[in-house]
């Protein structure tokens, strides 16, 4: 039995499968958040999710729109301050997996989320670094989830916001980063992983129906393909069902009109 699914769903299910149960995961909003919460509702119920709002061990019932939705705090093991979550948890080396996305990635997993064009006079000003450079440096390993296109998978970043393998071949390790760097890049074509020696990202797995040629055409550098290219299974219908239920609940929650019942003003 097969089920129709779109690229976002395939990416999300594939990314979720990269997460082992019990891992401590520092999560960004968007596809990373969807993947982590799918994993938590399927094979990894003990996945520990930390959002950079300081919500630690959170178990949202619907996906948050923002990194600090009330749902994240209400379902968390604890809520700590920003200085704490970045110093005591991330910099102290307590985070197993950092889950990132970006506007641009290069062949060594370095990321740009700052500007397109020149920094001083950008064509497109992006939101900026947030915690991504800190996560990229300190998480034991990094997962990246991004759609492949020549505009986003580029030979040269307009701006290096977060460090992947820098120039490759051990440059990151020699710089003394505590985290190992990007372990996998999940795209809408398949999975890229760093080469063991050069650390250049190469295609190691591909979705059913996707082709190497199409993946190469969507990549701004000459994309290498692993000697043995795995073909990934189609998303498990059970996983898809859980993901769709989660997203339907999310859309309903976010579309709800808000009414505030103000407290009666106190007598002063």
């Amino acid at each position: 039995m097969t089920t129709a699914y779109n690229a976002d769903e395939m990416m999300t299910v594939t990314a979720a499968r990269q997460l082992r149960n019990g891992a401590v995961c520092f999560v960004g909003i968007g596809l990373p958040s969807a993947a982590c919460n799918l994993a938590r509702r399927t094979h990894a119920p003990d996945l520990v999710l930390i959002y950079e709002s300081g919500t630690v061990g959170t178990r949202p019932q619907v996906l948050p729109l923002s990194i600090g939705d009330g749902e994240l705090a209400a379902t968390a093991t604890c809520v700590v301050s920003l200085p704490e979550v970045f110093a005591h948890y991330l910099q102290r080396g307590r985070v197993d997996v950092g889950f990132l996305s970006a506007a641009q990635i290069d062949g060594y997993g370095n990321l740009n989320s700052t500007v397109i064009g020149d920094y001083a006079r950008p064509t497109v000003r992006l939101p900026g670094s947030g915690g991504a450079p800190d996560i990229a440096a300190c998480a034991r390993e990094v997962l990246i989830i991004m759609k492949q296109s020549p505009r986003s998978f580029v030979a040269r970043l307009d701006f290096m916001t977060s460090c992947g393998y820098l120039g490759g071949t051990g440059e990151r390790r020699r710089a003394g980063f505590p985290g190992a760097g990007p372990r996998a890049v999940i795209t809408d074509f398949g999975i890229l992983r760093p080469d063991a020696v050069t650390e250049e990202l190469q295609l190691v797995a591909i979705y059913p129906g996707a082709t190497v040629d199409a993946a190469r055409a969507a990549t701004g550098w000459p994309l290498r393909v692993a000697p043995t290219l795995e073909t990934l299974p189609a998303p498990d219908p059970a996983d898809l069902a859980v993901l769709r239920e989660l997203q339907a609940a999310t859309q309903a929650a976010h579309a709800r009109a808000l009414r505030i019942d103000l407290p009666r003003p106190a007598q002063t």
Partner: protein
Amino acid sequence: MPLLSLREAIAGHVRDGQSIALEGFTHLIPFAAGHEIIRQGRRALHLIRMTPDLIHDQMIGMGCATQLTFSWGGNPGVGSLYRLRDAIERGWPQPLAIAEHTHAEMAVAYQAGASGLPCGLMRCYADTDLDRARGGRLARIACPFTGAALRAVPAITPDVTILHAQQVDREGNVLLRGIIGAAREAALAARCLLVTVEERVDRLAAPANAVVLPHWLISAVSVVPGGAHPSYAAGCYERDNRFYVEWDDIARQRERFQLWMQEHVLASADHAELLRRLRITA
């Protein structure tokens, strides 16, 4: 700790050219205070916030700011802040000088400010383009004991920090509950602290280890129910996620933005009226 109307608090404490931190990490964002700054026409402000969002888009688009210190400037979960982009990309309504950090750096900078230190420390591994772009604003130093490479981050000490919180008691002590971001550090780092609150109570609903700011740290408190909308106040009301999505359309074009601000923020005498216009309250 005087209890002032928000109009009095802003008029008395926020001056053109100051550095102003309106903190709040998605939660407890002092929207009402930001709107009052716009109504009073403050100019040349240096705005400081880890995550400038809609209220900063509005202040920047209305010409209040000439500088921004920040670590992430977007519409959370939605996309761009078009007024912020317009200011940086095209200098409209005026150029905006930016001082950009990572979240961790900015947290360290606030913490240093709150601690009376001129700088704070982080681990340092390799320079990014951000390090190169900002030149000498951060400095590498070596740990005097281990030789490890550290990054010194200069303290942030705002002229004024403005927070929104759930409660003030009769003495003027303020309770924050839920996601606190860097609110406490921004409060302690500031020379002047203004707070808007949902309600005034006899006694704070503050269990042991609650986040309470003592009255003697606070220059003025204003009771502004709903003052964080469209952000939220845990235990009082939820985040208006729908408004954040709608802002994407409102702010995209200069004219529509200006019209919206005119018809909502400027046309309202205060936050209570704005909430009625937005049909958030009855």
